[in-house]
């Protein structure tokens, strides 16, 4: 007789492998391997002490058994194939499968609950995983994408306009030129600037997104062309008028004509020769980019030209090494080029960051949080299914005891339980995948932002993409997501099946020790404790998620209610695109004429235009704002120096900006009369403190004539509502044209008229659109309108990120809460069921219904109280991860914690109310008789 040994790893391997040996040969096969192993063990034991080395050797030997098993597979075919199929159908596994299926079908209610739970968990986590995988894990669609980097400058708060530290990916052109010469770790540095250009076609003018790029950018990104060539090194000159088309532009402007190379496109009136068409999916820097033209880097800093930079690491250089070099070069250049306005260099200001991590830096923490939340939901699902399986287990356990008594092996019974759970798991995975598939669509739709590129520039600078996360089109249920779903389904079902399996094993041991066979359920006090612990965990996890979700939702509400400085409801916004060969005078006349005609339309309260719309960020320069008592160098050093926009008379009223003091621009404020300015509250506060700025004369250096402040308006947000507003001033567009006499005409026009972004205050913005179009056509058929949409939508698009956070965290939290609630219900119901007899006796002995009610409810309350408390604790511990995503609410907001905690406690206690009520209706006679 073989002495029983501990299951050492090598024996365990044989044990597992033997399952794959054809059944006919299995016993003998195992005997042979076991004998050899034990002989070897004994032999080794005789010579030296068995250490890890010998164990490893034995393990390696036993691993060979897998090959042996593989080789023996062909013995399966030795028999008659027909009989073989018949045997396969009647084999143990097939039997167990059929048995499992029958059990599943027999309990449709139970099955439905389990499947629903599983599929919701699998669906949610797979959907979130598919996003995380595409955005954070999949390399960017460029060759050797992990060597693409950006030089990131961390600007300390005292040097930024809003007094908040910023990460900048732009640098001045002269600095880039020097950097290129100095660097040894970056093989190529490409620069780009996004701009807009007016294209004149036969149908009239239209606006296109143009990227001015240094030719090296194509090399850096490894861009492929589908036609022609990309830009080449020599073309970095002001007079080289060549253009690379995007696949989209090729389609919309040339109808995919194959002989497009050599033809010309007029961008801002200048003819550019087409030299190439980019590959279908090349969309750098944004998906709306249609043309790439050469960027001319000006080596001297006559005018501040900021460019964004993408570089490629040398093959043998690590990011750390490149960062160290960037720090040195950055400081060296800061000292030699811009010593005039920079403070002392600070520690680690420059670094090199992978392009992908830079692009996802803003969204990555949130995505990780969502992934964690989804996995928490999955954890709750698993414990829920485990509890469900356990609570159904009583009958199964009795069945198992009988099977065991009839000679079934323990492994066979365990396998049966596992097979049933995996069956449920795979069905859940299938439904979950369908759920994930549809929710990914919803997710993408929610994360996509449908606003013109002009409004997206600020978001792109900040987040690397205008939508909630970059590369949104690549997101989908792919092989990776599929694998993930199957993996978590199998994992969840196996873990869930461990519950009943272990229980049965425990029964088994007990019954062989002579325990009670008739009522195995009554014995497991420890099982009850485990179930309670599981439910406490569920409630705790759900509470944590709920707190996070409520914080994010409150933050979103705060943000939506935050004052923007203007009233976006009932405002239609659009840009007027005028052919670039029109003179400034003609453009101005057109713009003014349109404003007059619009204002005269019925239903229109006010209309006007500005050089730049709100939410587009940025500003044009009209000189250096110089209030009395400040010198020009002082103001140049001031990082919070005001931004400015040129507006027409009707614009600010049309936007619903409030006038706090003074007067609006009037018809008399034209180019002949005294120059006047409106300032915002932030500006007034910054430079005039408590004094009223009305009537104060300021200078816009180097302009000679003074400007008089005639009014103070509310702070207008030019970015997201969670950002502090800049100090700003507004000038009349007519005066802006003549404000800077030294500037070239084209530049003055850009500053004064800019994008001709109109705002029309009108009740029915959709109804006015046809009128608007015909009016513009009447005015001048060559002029077009671009990006017409309600301002409300632009604002709402700007808040898509916090809305996304709020909705998705809310969804996950609700799922978690419902699952936690059902967990409490199931546990209490099961516990009550088990105590039926006891309760029956209590009632028979005269217990009041209220006592019984209290008895059961107190169980639920204890579980809920403990769970909620633990959950709040976890939420508090994890709150710091949320801080960056919140606005107007602190991550440790006591009100939220209190309300969520008490409400969820009440709800979970409510979950145990139904079983409690049922317990009071127990018939004592029936209960005592029940055995």
């Amino acid at each position: 007789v073989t002495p029983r040994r501990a299951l050492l790893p090598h024996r365990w391997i044989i044990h597992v492998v033997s399952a794959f040996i054809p059944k006919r040969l299995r016993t003998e096969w195992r005997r042979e391997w076991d004998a050899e192993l034990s002989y070897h063990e004994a032999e080794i034991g005789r010579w030296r002490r068995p250490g890890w080395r010998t164990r490893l050797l034995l393990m390696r030997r036993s691993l060979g058994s897998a090959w042996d098993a593989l080789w023996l597979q062909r013995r399966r075919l030795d028999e008659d194939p027909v009989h073989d199929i018949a045997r396969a159908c009647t084999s143990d596994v097939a039997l167990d499968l059929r048995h499992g299926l029958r059990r599943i079908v027999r309990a449709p209610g139970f099955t439905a609950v389990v499947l629903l739970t599983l599929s919701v968990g699998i669906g949610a986590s797979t959907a979130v995983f598919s996003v995380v995988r595409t955005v954070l894990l999949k390399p960017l669609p460029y060759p050797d994408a992990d060597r693409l980097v950006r030089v990131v400058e961390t600007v300390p708060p005292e040097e930024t306009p809003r007094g908040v530290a910023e990460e900048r990916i732009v640098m001045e052109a002269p600095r880039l030129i020097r950097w290129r010469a100095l660097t040894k770790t970056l093989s190529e540095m490409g620069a780009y600037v996004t701009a807009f250009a007016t294209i004149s076609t036969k149908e009239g003018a239209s606006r296109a997104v143009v990227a001015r790029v240094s030719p090296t950018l194509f090399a850096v990104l490894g861009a492929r062309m589908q036609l022609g060539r990309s830009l080449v090194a020599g073309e970095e000159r002001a007079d080289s008028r060549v253009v690379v088309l995007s696949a989209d532009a090729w389609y919309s402007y040339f109808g995919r004509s194959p002989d497009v190379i050599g033809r010309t496109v007029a961008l801002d009136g200048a003819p550019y020769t087409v030299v190439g068409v980019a590959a279908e999916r090349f969309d750098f820097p944004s998906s709306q980019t249609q043309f790439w033209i050469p960027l001319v880097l000006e080596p001297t800093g006559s005018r501040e030209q900021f460019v964004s930079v993408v570089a490629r690491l040398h093959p043998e250089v690590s990011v750390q090494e490149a960062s160290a070099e960037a720090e040195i070069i950055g400081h060296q250049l800061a000292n030699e080029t811009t010593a005039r306005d920079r403070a002392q260099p600070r520690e680690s200001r420059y670094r090199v960051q992978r392009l992908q991590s830079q692009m996802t830096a803003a969204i990555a923490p949130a995505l990780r949080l969502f992934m964690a939340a989804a996995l928490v939901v999955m954890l709750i699902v698993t414990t829920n299914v485990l509890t469900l399986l356990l609570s159904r287990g009583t009958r199964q356990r009795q069945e198992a005891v009988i099977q065991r008594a009839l000679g079934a092996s323990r492994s066979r019974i365990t396998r049966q339980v596992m097979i049933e759970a995996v069956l449920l798991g795979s069905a859940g995975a299938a439904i979950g995948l369908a759920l994930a598939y549809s929710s990914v669509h919803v997710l993408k739709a929610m994360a996509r932002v449908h606003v013109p590129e002009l409004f997206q520039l600020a978001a792109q600078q900040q987040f690397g993409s205008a939508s909630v996360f970059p590369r949104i089109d690549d997101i989908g249920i792919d092989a990776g997501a599929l694998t993930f779903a199957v993996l978590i389904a199998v994992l969840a079902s196996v873990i869930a099946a461990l519950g009943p399996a272990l229980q049965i094993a425990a029964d088994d041991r007990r019954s062989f020790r002579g325990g009670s066979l008739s009522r195995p359920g009554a014995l497991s006090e420890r099982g009850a404790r485990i179930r309670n612990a599981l439910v406490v965990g569920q409630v705790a996890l759900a509470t944590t998620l709920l707190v996070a979700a409520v914080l994010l939702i409150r933050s979103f509400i705060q943000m939506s209610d935050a004052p923007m400085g203007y009233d976006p409801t009932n405002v239609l916004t659009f840009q007027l695109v005028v052919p670039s060969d029109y003179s400034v005078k003609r453009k101005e006349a057109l713009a003014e004429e349109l404003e007059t005609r619009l204002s005269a339309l019925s239903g229109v309260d006010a209309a006007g235009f500005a050089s730049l719309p709100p939410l587009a960020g940025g500003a044009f320069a009209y000189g250096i704002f110089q209030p009395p008592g400040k010198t020009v160098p002082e103001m140049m050093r001031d990082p919070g120096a005001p931004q400015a926009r040129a507006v027409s008379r009707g614009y600010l009223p049309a936007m619903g900006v409030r006038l706090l003091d003074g007067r609006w621009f009037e018809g008399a404020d034209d180019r002949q009369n005294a120059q006047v300015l409106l300032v915002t509250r932030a500006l007034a506060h910054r430079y005039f403190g408590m004094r009223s700025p009305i009537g104060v004369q300021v200078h816009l250096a180097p302009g000679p004539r003074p400007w008089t402040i005639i009014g103070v308006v509310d702070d207008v947000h030019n970015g997201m509502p969670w950002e502090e507003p800049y100090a700003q001033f507004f000038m009349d567009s007519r005066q802006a044209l003549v404000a800077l006499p030294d500037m070239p005409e084209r530049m003055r026009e850009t500053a004064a008229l800019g994008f001709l972004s109109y705002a029309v205050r009108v009740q029915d913005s959709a109804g006015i659109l046809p009128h608007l179009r015909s009016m513009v056509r009447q005015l001048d058929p060559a002029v077009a309108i671009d990006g017409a949409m309600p301002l409300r939508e632009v604002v709402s698009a700007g808040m898509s990120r916090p809305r996304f956070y709020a909705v998705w965290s809310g969804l996950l939290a609700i799922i978690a809460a419902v699952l936690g609630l059902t967990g409490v219900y199931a546990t209490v119901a099961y516990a009550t069921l088990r105590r039926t007899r006891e309760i029956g006796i209590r009632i028979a002995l005269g217990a009041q219904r209220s006592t019984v009610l209290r008895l059961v409810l107190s169980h639920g309350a204890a579980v809920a109280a403990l769970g909620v408390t633990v959950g709040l604790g976890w939420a508090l511990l994890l709150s710091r991860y949320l801080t960056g995503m919140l606005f107007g609410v602190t991550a440790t907001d006591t009100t939220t914690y209190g309300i969520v905690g008490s409400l969820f406690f009440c709800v979970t206690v409510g979950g145990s109310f139904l079983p409690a009520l049922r317990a009071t209706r127990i018939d004592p006679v029936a209960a005592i008789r029940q055995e």
Partner: protein
Amino acid sequence: MREDYLCRIRLMPAPVLSHAATAVLQAVANGHQHGFDVIAVTGLASGTVYPALRRLEEAGWLESRWEEHLVAQRELRPPRKYYEVTAPGEVALAGALARYRSLAGRGRARSRPLRPSRPEGGRP
């Protein structure tokens, strides 16, 4: 007699003795009758030796038997399975050895040379 067999073997399309199988067969012929002993002697992996043993047995060149129960019991271990070379097996071995030796002679054998076998009945 031996020549005849050799002729027949050479004409037989399958199975052809691989280098590893030859080594295994030779090890068994030299008295290393158990799977792990063969592994120890030939230095081949267990995943190679066992399939080779099965294949040789299938071809009728090896025979397997279980150890006497009493022998095993005396040593407090389960009975082992041991393999013996059959008469056709010996012929096949001789043929295969001749083939590999001639290959080695012509310098075309790329595989590891066979290990020198231990004397009869030798135990590690």
